[in-house]
């Protein structure tokens, strides 16, 4: 049977084209790779090469023909040993049913609303209360202990980054780890964030559990391609085969007086991404429990610390098996009049604001989000059902920030319970200034939060 040569699709968007010119005549021998014809697509003029060998039996579409549909037969090719009489037997013009190109996912899938809840609002996992003995630790010590305990527990866990080994960490988070675990597992890297983030992802693909420390998250911008394109997406792209059990951690947000390129909160950047988990604890107990959960988690986790918090002390459960589930917010101060939600360093400022508000007779409920993805929407909504007012505080910029997402979620899930619009308290919409006074103005303070709370309570 002669082989039908079909009008090919020669670009991702082509549906029809013009048959410009035939390079072979009827009766010509055709070898695979020979240029058969020229076709004008929606993008360019392309040559069509033969894929099969044989003899050009019949041209069905003359050169110069416009609007030839993709998949329409344009010629018949005689195979080895066939002669022209075979052409009569060919079922002329019975083009195969147009190929049913896979419909784009958006059309076949249920509308997102009806689909399983996206990870940003996953049901919160259970958390155990600790009633055993506790010790006072700084956030710095808590993070170090978390890594050390997990490295003792699992030989596949290792730490890599700039100055993490011999220097004991640029911010002394990895103190003592080189001595205990040796150079095989506590690895000083060159200043090559893009490279070592990729090396970490490769090791994770192969089953190791790297902790990649960025000296600060500002430098993770060099490596963001591997966080986004390699770590977060590969599980999906591999149909569930290849995971990236990796933790990217380091200080995020404003330090003090280091100006624009070293003071930025990247929370909303990472929160945007399906496939990643994003954690930003405030207290030492949560820092420890969440870092241990992050290391054990089979998914890539971005773990946002805060330099200013490193030296602050908190009570921490005195055990080497304390974990805090990722995806669970915590009410750090109960109240009935207004909800203030925040994460990382802003939780402290929110508590300060709540103290000030209490002095004026306003009882604020303060929620520490702790995890940003998955986000514990339920805890915020439940609180808003009680207080009917929400203030959200973050260091980052307002535009497409974490607060923007929270406000949208409240429209979707708590609209009927709100007695005032959700109010955001954000970093000033400017690169961080260096001057001390300007820096203070650029960062949200407890007074700004208290002010916002009074506004949504319509109090003076």
């Amino acid at each position, binding site marked *: 049977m002669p082989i039908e040569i079909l009008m090919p699709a020669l*670009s991702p968007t082509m549906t029809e084209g013009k048959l410009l010119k035939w390079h072979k005549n009827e009766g010509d021998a055709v070898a695979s790779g020979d240029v058969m014809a020229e076709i004008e697509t929606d993008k360019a003029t392309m040559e069509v090469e033969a894929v099969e060998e044989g003899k050009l039996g019949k041209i069905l579409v003359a050169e110069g023909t416009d609007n030839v549909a993709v998949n329409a037969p344009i010629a018949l090719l005689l195979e080895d040993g066939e002669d022209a009489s075979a052409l009569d037997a060919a079922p002329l013009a019975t083009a195969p049913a147009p190929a049913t190109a896979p419909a784009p*996912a958006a059309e076949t899938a249920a509308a997102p609303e009806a689909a399983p809840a996206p990870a940003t609002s996953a049901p919160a996992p259970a958390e155990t209360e600790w009633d055993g003995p506790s010790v006072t630790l700084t956030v710095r010590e808590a993070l170090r202990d978390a890594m050390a305990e997990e490295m003792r527990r699992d030989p596949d866990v290792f730490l890599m980054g700039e100055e993490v080994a011999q220097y004991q960490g640029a911010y002394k988070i990895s103190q003592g780890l080189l001595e205990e675990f040796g150079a095989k597992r506590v690895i000083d890297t060159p200043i090559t964030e893009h490279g070592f983030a990729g090396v970490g992802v490769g090791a994770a693909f192969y089953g190791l559990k790297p902790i990649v420390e960025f000296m600060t998250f500002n430098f993770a911008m060099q490596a963001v391609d591997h966080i986004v394109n390699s770590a977060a997406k590969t599980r999906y792209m591999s*149909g569930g085969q290849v995971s990236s059990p990796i933790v990217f951690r380091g200080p995020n947000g404003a330090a003090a007086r280091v100006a624009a390129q070293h003071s930025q909160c990247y929370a909303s950047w990472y929160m945007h991404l399906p496939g990643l988990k994003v954690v930003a604890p405030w207290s030492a107990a949560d820092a420890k429990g969440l870092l241990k959960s992050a290391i054990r988690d089979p998914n890539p986790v971005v773990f946002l610390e805060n330099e200013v918090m490193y030296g602050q002390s908190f009570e921490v459960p005195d055990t080497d098996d304390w974990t805090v589930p990722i995806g669970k917010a915590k009410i750090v101060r109960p109240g009935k009049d207004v909800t203030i939600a925040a994460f990382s360093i802003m939780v402290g400022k929110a508590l300060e604001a709540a103290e000030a508000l209490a002095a004026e007779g306003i009882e604020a409920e303060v929620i520490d989000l702790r995890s940003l993805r998955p986000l514990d929407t339920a805890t915020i909504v439940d609180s808003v059902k009680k207080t009917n007012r929400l203030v959200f505080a973050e260091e980052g910029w307002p535009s497409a920030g974490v607060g923007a997402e929270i406000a949208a979620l409240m429209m979707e899930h708590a609209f009927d319970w709100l007695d005032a619009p959700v109010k955001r308290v954000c970093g000033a919409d400017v690169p961080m200034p260096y001057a001390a006074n300007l820096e203070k103005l650029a960062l949200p303070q407890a007074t700004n939060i208290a002010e916002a709370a009074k506004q949504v309570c319509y109090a003076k």
Partner: protein
Amino acid sequence: MLEIRRFEEKAGQMYGMGLIGGFCHLYIGQEAVVIGMQAAVTDRDTVLTSYRDHGHMLARGMDPKGVMAELTGRRGGYSKGKGGSMHMFSQEKGFYGGHGIVAAQVPIGTGIAFAHKYKDENAVCLTYLGDGAINQGQVYESFNMAALWQLPVVYVIENNKYAMGTSIERGSARTDLYHRGHAYGIPGAQVDGMDVVAVKKAGELAVAHARSGKGPYILEMHTYRYRGHSMSDPAKYRTKEEVQKVRQERDPIERLRGVLLDEAGVEEAKLKDIDRKVKAIVTEAAEFAQHSPEPDASELYTDVYA
């Protein structure tokens, strides 16, 4: 090599029929590189490459049906239809992708080599990259770390002379790429990538070096892609004569055919038989890829998290 060639021709044809969408980068012309290198490694070694990955997967022994069904975006594909031409993986066969970002596979392959060493496995990671990818900064970050930590990785540069429409002369200050590890003390060699026997020999040396704990090795394969960069590339940046000349004088399959017939005394009929078998395998893969159903809509939300 023939299986890759026929598979790619079929993929091109199916793209033309609208059964394969998006980008589709064919490997036609470069087959000797992956086949020669595969002959130099073992099953416990690992491989990864860029988006031009079909040949690497077939050489690795992955099922042509699963590869083709991924190209058509179907359930039976290696990534259940969710990765497509550029993103496929098989842990079973030690194949770690399929990467769409130029050169991103280089640190990742270096990381897999790191894991081989960490786990004391005596395995080697083959990390393929193009003559365009070689100019990315992360490649040198990787070279430095691989040499610093003596990682068992062989970087195979597939110098096919073009990065999309940019010829190597227009993109690289120095065009002899096997030197690129010199500053890090990484040995390198230039290989005729159109000669499968030469590739195997060079590959064995490089792999033995990496396996023995001496660290990374660079192989620059001189090769050529016959087709456009992807299916929608009209390839106006080179002449037809240039392509035709390589096809006639250096084609890796024709060359091996010549060696087999003239020097090894293999009979023509035997080769015809192979032709037939390969054709059947590819036809079966294409059939499977067209009849495997599309992924269930519920798959949209699976495999995001472990």
